[in-house]
Every structure is written in C-alpha cells, then in structure tokens.
C-alpha cells in the first residue's frame, strides 16, 4: 500500500487523469458501436463522473498521512468520492439497460464551440493585449458570432462596455484590470 501511495502522490497524478480520459473516450466509442448508440452521450457523461469518483478516491491515498483523533484528511473526500462512484454505477446501469431517454439532439454546437474558443482567446488576449482592447474586441466578435449584423450598434456596445468597465470596475471599485504584457513591453 505504501508503494501505491508513493505512486499516487507522484506519477499517478498524471497517469490517473489520462487513464480517466481514455476510459471515457473508450466508453463513448463502445456505446456508439452498440445498440446504445443514441445514449452514447449520457453514457460518456456518467462514465466521466464514475472515473472522477474513482480517480479522486485513488488520489486520497497520496495525501500526507496525518490524522487527529481518528479524523484524517482523506476521510471526507473518500466519503463523497465513494458516494459519487456508487451513484454513477447506478446511473450507468440505468443508461446501458436502455431505460434512459435518448441523448438530446445537437443544435448549433458549432456556435457553442466557437464561443468557447472565443472565450479562451479572450483569456489569452487579456494577458497580452490587456483587458480593455480584448474586452472590446470580444463583445464585438461575440455579437457577430451570435448572428447580429448591425456593425454600428456592435461598435457602440463594445465601446460602451469598455467605458463602463473602466469607470465602474477600474475607477469606482479600484479593480486593477490587466494592461497586458505586450503593451507594457511597449511602454504604453
């Protein structure tokens, strides 16, 4: 058990999450190739939650072994992870038995993914270009992405947001909004 604890505290922190991702992908592929094709999404989500519970439970063995009057640091995480594992197994059994409703159909998932990408780009952009430029571009691009085509209104909205965030958050609430490494490097 000691060697397992050591492994979990070291390499296990990388291997276990990767194994979890692989298991979720495998479960989705398996479901897609079986009669449960229309439940593949639900099965993948339930498997992900099961893996999360199992990984969390396993990782508790890597916690520094301290205990005080019988109450250790791993006691409560194990309790919740164990609960998640049991419930996930019940859900998976339900999903594989076909008693579950079919997966919801995909709407404009392309837009959702693009929006997520835009948000990630905003996070990266803030670090380099600073908050104000990135936020303005984001509001404008987000409106376009959602199908709004009145450019003048979008420009006003973006400008208005930048002004609002400057006056309310920076001036009034004194939140130090990032100016961006690039602009700082240029001495702006």
């Amino acid at each position, binding site marked *: 058990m000691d060697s397992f604890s050591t492994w979990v505290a070291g390499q296990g922190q990388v291997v276990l999450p990767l194994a979890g991702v692989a298991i979720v992908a495998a479960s989705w592929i398996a479901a897609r190739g079986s009669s449960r094709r229309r439940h593949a*999404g*639900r099965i993948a*989500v339930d498997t992900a*939650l099961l893996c999360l519970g199992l990984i969390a439970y396993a990782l508790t063995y890597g*916690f*520094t072994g*301290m*205990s*005080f*009057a*019988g*109450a250790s*640091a791993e*006691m*409560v*995480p194990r309790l*919740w*992870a164990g*609960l*998640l594992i049991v*419930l*996930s197994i*019940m*859900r998976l059994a*339900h999903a594989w038995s076909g008693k579950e*409703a079919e997966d919801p159909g*995909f*709407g*404009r*998932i392309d*837009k*959702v993914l693009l*929006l*997520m990408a835009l*948000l990630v780009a*905003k*996070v990266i952009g*803030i670090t380099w270009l600073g*908050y104000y430029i990135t*936020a303005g571009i*984001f*509001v*404008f691009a*987000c*409106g376009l992405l*959602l*199908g*709004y085509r009145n450019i003048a*209104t979008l420009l006003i*909205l973006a400008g208005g*947001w930048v002004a609002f*965030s400057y006056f*309310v*958050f920076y001036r*009034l*609430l004194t*939140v*130090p*909004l*990032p100016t961006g490494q690039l602009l700082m490097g240029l001495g702006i």
Partner: protein
Amino acid sequence: MDSLLGLLRATGQLLSLQPLLLITVGISVGILAGAMPGVSPSMGVALMVPFTYAMDPSMALVYLAAIYLAANYGGAITAIMINTPGTPSAVVTSFDGHPLCVQGRAREALGLALVASFVGGAFGTLILMLFAAPLASVALKFWPAEYFSLAVLGLSTIASMGGENALKSAMSAALGLLVCTVGMDPVLGVNRFTFGNVNLFDGFEFIPMLIGLLALSEIFVEVEEFDFRPQKVEDEAGSKWPGFLYYWKLRAAMLRASIIGTIVGIFPGAGATIAAFISYDMEKRISKTPERFGKGIPEGVVAGEAADSASVGGALVPMLTLGIPGSATAAVLMGALMIHDLQPGPELFVKNPDVIYKLYASLFIGNTVMLILGIWGSKLWINVTRVRKQLLFPLIFAFAMIGSYAVNSSMWDVMVCLGFGIVGYILKRYNYPLPPFVLGMVLGEMAEMNLRRAVMMAGPTAVFQRPISVTMLAVAALSFVIPVISARRKRAAKAKGSVAA
C-alpha cells in the same frame, strides 16, 4: 422588545439617501434581471456580487437581497407580456397572466402580479422576522454531529427535488461536495487534489465557480438552441391599472398563496417554482370556477406571484438560522455573505444582529420601493423584453469574466469560471440539475468540518449517538427515498395505462 428596537434602529439607518439609493438600484437591477429571458434570479445575484466587494457587508447583503426580491417579480413581466417567463417560477404567472394580456388587460395583469408580489414579499419577511430568531436560538444548542446531519438533510431535500431525476440530483450534489474538498484541508493543512498548483491551495474560489455554473452554462445552452427571434409584445392599449378595491377582493387568494409560498420556501431546496405551482394548484382546487384557470383569471396570477415572492422570506429562514440555503438564489446570497466574512447560521444572530435587522428592514423597504418602481416603470420594464439576446449575451459574458477576475484580481479565477461554465453546460445538456451542485459546494465545508469535529469528539459513530442527529438523518433518508418511490410508482402506473390503452 429588543428585536423591535433593533428593527426600528435599522429602518432608521436605511431611510437615508445612500441606502435608499442602493435598494432602489438593487430593485431596478432585480426587475431588469428577472425580466430578461435567459437571466435567472440566481444568475442576476451572482453577476452583481463583484459590485459589492467594496461595500460594507450589511449594505452588500441589503443590495443583493433587493435584487433577489425584485427578480422574482421581474420574471412575471415577460411571462405576462410575451408569454416567456423570465424566471422558472414565473411559468405559473404566465398561465393566466398572458391570456389576460391577450384579452387587452395587460396592465391589469401586471398590476395583479405587482401587488401580489408586494403582499407575498411582505408576508414572507414577517414570517422570517418572527421565526428566524427562535429557530436560531435552538440551532445554537446543536453539536457538530447535529450540524453534519443538518447539512445532509439540506442536501437530501434538494436531491429529492428531482423526482424522476433524483439520482442525477444526488450525483450533482456529490460532485459539488467533492469539488469543495479541493485545496488545503481545513483541520490538518494537508493539500488535497491540488496537483502541485499553488492556485488550488485555497480551493476553487466560490464566485467564479458560481458564475460559470449558473451564468455561462445557461448561455451556452441558449446559444446551442440559437433562437434569437425577438418576441412580439402584445398590445396593451386601452387597459388600466386596477384600483384598491379590485385587489381587496383578492385578499384571501393572496394570503393563501403567501402562506404556501413561505412554508414551501422554508424547506431547503424547494424554492419559488415549487411554491408557485403548489399555490396555483391549491387555488384551482378550491375555486368555484376551476375551468377558468389557464384562460385569464386574476386568482391564477395572484396565486403564483404571491407564493413566488413569499418564498424569498421563507428561503432566508433556513439560510440565516441554520446556514442552509432554501433556494439556489439563497445559496448565491450565502456565498456572498461568506465572501464578506459573515458566516450564515445561528451565530450570525449573536455576533452580527445589526446585519440581520438591516436585512429585515431592507426587505420591507425594498418591497415598497418595488411597488412604486413597478407602477412607475411598467413601460420601461416592458421594453426590456425587446432587448436582443445577441446583444445581451456578449455583455453577460463580459460581466461574468470581469466579475470573476475582480474577486482576487486573478486570471486563474477567470479560467475557473470558464471551466465550470463548460462543465455546467455539459451537465445541463444531459439534464443534470445544477442547483444541487451549488448546494453541495455551499454545504460541503459545513458538512466536512462538523463531521470531523464530531468524529474527534465521539468517534466514528458520533453522528448516530445523538437523538436529534439520528432523527435528522432519518428524515434526510426518507425525504430522499419517498420522492424516488413515488416517481417510480407514477412511472409504473403510466406504463400500465399506456399498455391498457
């Protein structure tokens, strides 16, 4: 007597320019948030929390409570005018409110919703004032074992809310509880699930998590549906605001709905939506003309709206006295209190009674402000429903991001917000309810701390050694099992019925 004096003193303090302005802004923001389809009361409150960082804790609570109070009424505006409830609980208002609007009686319907909200809100606050302090004094005698059982009880009621989705609700709550254990162990200082990341040593910051789960996930779902067609606002020309006598005739219906709303609101996890549905159902059952319900009957509007608003005061009872939120919005409010170093629970009544009295007073004042603003701003609120989601959503995203950043001036928190937004979207897409997740996050620390304290004091079976604790655990188990069994029975009966047909 002390309570009355405290309340009078707090009322006096709030009746000055700055607090009144704050309440008015809160009520306006709440009505706008409730009226905008896609913005729920919990989302509205969560998005406004960053504005309170620089405020005095009691003023922050007053401001956020005003938003909570008004958002429930705001939801009724869209429900009545465009048959699109701005909040889940306003669905009930739309049953009879929109038919009234279609009949050209829009102002009558809006007036009914407003007055019913006012009466319900005032009643709920009165009950909060009467019962919160005695309940808190009982709760002060609890031991850690009882507190742990109380947290389990709170969790079980929300998990049982799902009915057929009970298992998913329970998983969602378990996920929230597990997320809560990330970071440094509160007793021994052991790092848990931090993967060596310094940002995780204090666990996930509550507000970014909350904004991601409640606001971002909701918008992702709406974007996937991609239906941004503007709603047609019904013509309200010719309709009038009703007079006092008109409302007076509906006093019994308002009172009934207020009582139901407050009682339902007190139960953790039940919330405004269930309160509104139960009240509507009850009103229909006792009505001499039940066939008129759903076609535009004033009692229908009043039943839903008064119960909806009364549930606010009810939901604050367990939050303030026991530290268990009665609704998703109360959970957000509780998180906001914790940010201001105020721990909701019985000790709040001992350590910060001024905060409690200010909250009571602000709810009464807020209700009155809502009544005035509701009448004065009816045209404006109706116009809010015309705001295009394509313009609204970029602003909510921008708000979510800056709000998350403002907590610690950290980009890590922005990433946490985004991450939880994606997790929330996936869970929501597959019908995992998110309020239990939030409740798990809120109650996680209370459950852990008290379980460990109990174990340290009396060993591993500590929670089964005290009668109150055992009773609460038994009630928790029952409140989880009964809805599951009843949902199964209903399913079985339905299946039998369809086979017979």
